[in-house]
C-alpha cells in the first residue's frame, strides 16, 4: 500500500554500538552529549599530556603528569627537576591552554555562523571580523610598536571591532538588519580588508617586519604566556556556555525566520546577539593566535556528521572538538620539524581538509548539510 517502507533499517555505527553500553536515557540529546563529551574529554586529556611531554626538552611521562598536577595545585612536585618544572609551567602549559581556548572559540563561532546564515560554508571569518583583526595586527607590526606582547592582540581586537561595526552599519542601512545584506557586506568588507593587509605587507620595507607579518598571518601559539592564556581561555569558555544556553534557539533559527518566530524566539534580537558573540570569539582567537583557518568551518560539520544536527549537542561537542583539533595541530606543528616550527594554520588546513573528506566519504547518510 505505502510507497515507502514504514521503518528504515538503522545502520550499526560505532556510535550506536557504543550507546548500548550506556545506561538508558530517553533522550538522544543527553546520551549524545554525555558520550561525546566523555570521548572528546578523554582525548583532550591524552592530547594535553602528549603536548606537555613533547618538545626540545624531553620530559618523561610520569614527570609530566606530576609537574602538571603540581602546577595546578600550586605545590612543588617531587622528582621533577626545576628545569622540567619551569619548561612545563612557563612554556608548555600556557601554550596548551591558549591552543585549547582558541580552538574552542573558533569552533563555537563557526557553529553559530553556520546556523545564523543557514549556510554550510559559513566560517568564523565570514563577516570580516578576522580580516579586520589581521589588518589591525599587521598595522601594529608595520608601525613597529613593541614593548608589550599585548600590542599586536590589542591592534587586532581594534581591527576586528572596527570591521564588525562597519559591517553592521551597512547591514542596518535599511533600518532592519537583513541577513542577506549582513552576509554580503561581511564578504565584501572581508575582501577589502584582505586587500588592505596585502598592501600593508607589500609597502613594508623592513624584511624582518614583513616576515613577522607572514608568520602572524599563518597562525601560531609561540608567543603564549599565562597572560595571554588567561585572557583567551575564560572568554572562550564563557562564549561556549552562552552558545550552549542558546543552542535550542539555534535549532529554530535553522528553520527560517517565520518558523523560528512562531516557535517562540525573538529572531531579530537573538540573531544580532549571536553575531556579536561569534564575532567576539573570532576576534579574540585571531588576536592571540593569528589566522587559523578551517577549524571553525570543519569541526562543526565533523560533529554533525557523527551526531546529527541538533545544536543541543553540536555546540558543546564542537567546542571540545575544536579545542582538541587545535591542540593536536599545534603539537604537530612544533614537533614535525623540531626544533623549528611549522605554523598551526598550515597544519589545520593540511590535515583537516583530507581528514574531513575521509569522514564525508565514510559516513553513509550525510547529516551535515545545513
Amino acid at each position: 500500500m505505502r510507497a515507502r517502507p514504514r521503518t528504515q533499517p538503522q545502520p550499526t555505527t560505532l556510535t550506536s554500538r557504543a550507546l548500548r553500553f550506556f545506561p538508558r536515557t530517553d533522550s538522544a540529546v543527553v546520551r549524545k552529549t554525555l558520550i561525546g563529551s566523555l570521548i572528546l574529554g578523554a582525548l583532550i586529556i591524552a592530547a594535553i599530556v602528549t603536548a606537555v611531554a613533547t618538545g626540545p626538552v624531553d620530559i618523561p611521562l610520569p614527570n609530566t603528569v606530576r609537574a602538571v598536577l603540581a602546577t595546578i595545585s600550586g605545590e612543588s612536585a617531587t622528582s621533577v627537576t626545576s628545569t622540567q618544572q619551569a619548561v612545563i609551567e612557563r612554556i608548555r602549559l600556557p601554550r596548551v591552554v591558549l591552543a585549547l581556548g582558541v580552538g574552542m572559540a573558533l569552533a563555537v563561532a563557526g557553529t553559530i555562523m553556520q546556523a545564523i546564515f543557514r549556510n554550510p560554508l559559513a566560517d568564523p571569518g565570514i563577516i570580516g571580523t578576522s580580516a579586520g583583526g589581521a589588518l589591525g595586527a599587521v598595522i601594529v607590526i608595520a608601525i613597529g610598536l613593541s614593548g608589550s606582547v599585548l600590542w599586536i592582540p590589542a591592534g587586532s581586537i581594534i581591527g576586528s571591532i572596527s570591521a564588525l561595526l562597519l559591517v553592521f552599519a551597512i547591514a542596518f542601512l535599511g533600518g532592519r538588519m537583513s541577513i542577506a545584506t549582513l552576509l554580503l557586506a561581511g564578504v565584501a568588507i572581508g575582501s577589502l580588508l584582505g586587500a588592505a593587509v596585502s598592501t600593508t605587507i607589500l609597502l613594508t620595507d623592513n624584511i624582518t617586519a614583513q616576515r613577522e607579518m607572514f608568520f602572524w598571518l599563518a597562525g601560531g601559539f609561540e608567543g603564549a604566556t599565562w597572560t595571554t592564556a588567561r585572557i583567551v581561555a575564560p572568554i572562550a569558555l564563557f562564549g561556549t556556555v552562552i552558545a550552549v544556553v542558546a543552542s535550542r534557539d539555534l535549532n529554530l533559527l535553522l528553520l527560517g525566520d517565520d518558523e523560528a518566530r512562531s516557535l517562540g524566539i525573538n529572531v531579530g534580537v537573538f540573531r544580532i546577539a549571536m553575531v556579536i558573540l561569534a564575532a567576539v570569539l573570532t576576534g579574540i582567537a585571531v588576536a592571540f593566535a593569528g589566522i587559523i583557518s578551517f577549524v571553525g568551518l570543519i569541526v562543526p560539520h565533523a560533529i554533525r556528521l557523527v551526531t546529527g544536527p541538533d545544536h543541543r549537542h553540536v555546540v558543546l561537542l564542537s567546542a571540545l572538538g575544536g579545542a582538541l583539533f587545535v591542540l593536536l595541530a599545534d603539537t604537530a606543528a612544533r614537533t614535525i620539524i623540531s626544533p623549528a616550527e611549522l605554523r598551526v594554520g598550515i597544519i589545520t588546513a593540511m590535515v583537516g581538509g583530507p581528514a574531513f573528506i575521509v569522514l564525508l566519504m565514510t559516513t553513509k547518510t550525510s547529516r551535515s548539510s545545513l
Partner: protein
Amino acid sequence: MTATLPRNPLLASRLTDRGPSSISAVGGAAAFSAKDLSVRIGNSNIVDDVSLVGNFGELLGIIGPNGAGKTTLLKVLAGLLKPSLGCVEIDGVDLEKMPSSTRSRQLAYVPQITGAHPFTALELVLMGRYPHLRRFQIESEDDTEIAIEAMERMDVAQFKGRRVDTLSGGERQRVLLARALAQRGDVLFVDEPITSLDIKHQLLALQVLKDEARDRSVAVCAVLHDLNMAARFCDRVVLLAEGGMIDEGEPGCVITERRVAEVFGVRARVTRRARSNGVTVDLIEPSD
C-alpha cells in the same frame, strides 16, 4: 532528565469552561480579532483595512486570488509581521504586547513550505514542543508521545527517522501540520495547508484541522485555494481581493457564481447542497 509536562493553564481552563460542544464563542472573548489592519509595503497596501474575528472551535477559511494579501494577513494575525496600522488581539490580549514565549504557546503557525535543513521529521515535530519546555529541559517521553500522535494524525509517523529534506513537498507539508498540532496552541494559523497534498491527504488534513477545532476548541484559520474544500470544511470564510475584505460569512453565502466571476475572474456553476448545508463549485472557464 525526566520532567512533567507543563500544562497550559489557559487551555485547561477553557476546555472545562466551555467544553468541546460550544462551537462559537459569541458573547465571550474571540479567539483572535483584527481591527482595521493595514500592511503597507512601498506604495501599495498589501492588506487594506481588514477587520475580522475568529472564534474558538471554528475553522475559518481565507480565500481569494493570488496577490490578495492572504499570506500577509495570516502572518500579521500570527504575530510574525507588524501591521502598519491596526492591531490584533489574541483571546483579548494585544498581540504586540505578548512576549514571544507566551505567543508561541498559544499560537501555532504553519508556513507554505519549510526551508532546507538537516533535521529528521520527528526532530522537526518535536520542535513544536520547545515552547512548552524550560530552557534546559529536554523533551520528555510525553512530548515524544504528543509528537508521534500528531504525526500519526497527519499520516507521517512512518517518516519519523527520515530527514525532512528527503521528503516530497506534500509529505513535508504534512510534517509541518503535525508540528503545529504538537504545539497544542489555542489558535492555529495555516497557510495553504493542502496545496501540495494528494486528494486523500487533502481530505484527511482538513478533517484533522476541523476535528482539532471541534474537539479541542481551537480556533483554526487556514488560507485555502480550493473553493470546494473551503466550502466543505470551513465554518466561515473570508474573501479577500487586492488586500481588502470583500465578504465574510458562511461558505454558502460568500461563494456565489457572481463573486467567483467578479473576484476570481472565473465562470463557474455553484450548486447548493442541501444536505451538508454547503455548496459545490464547478469551474468552467476564465471569464474574461
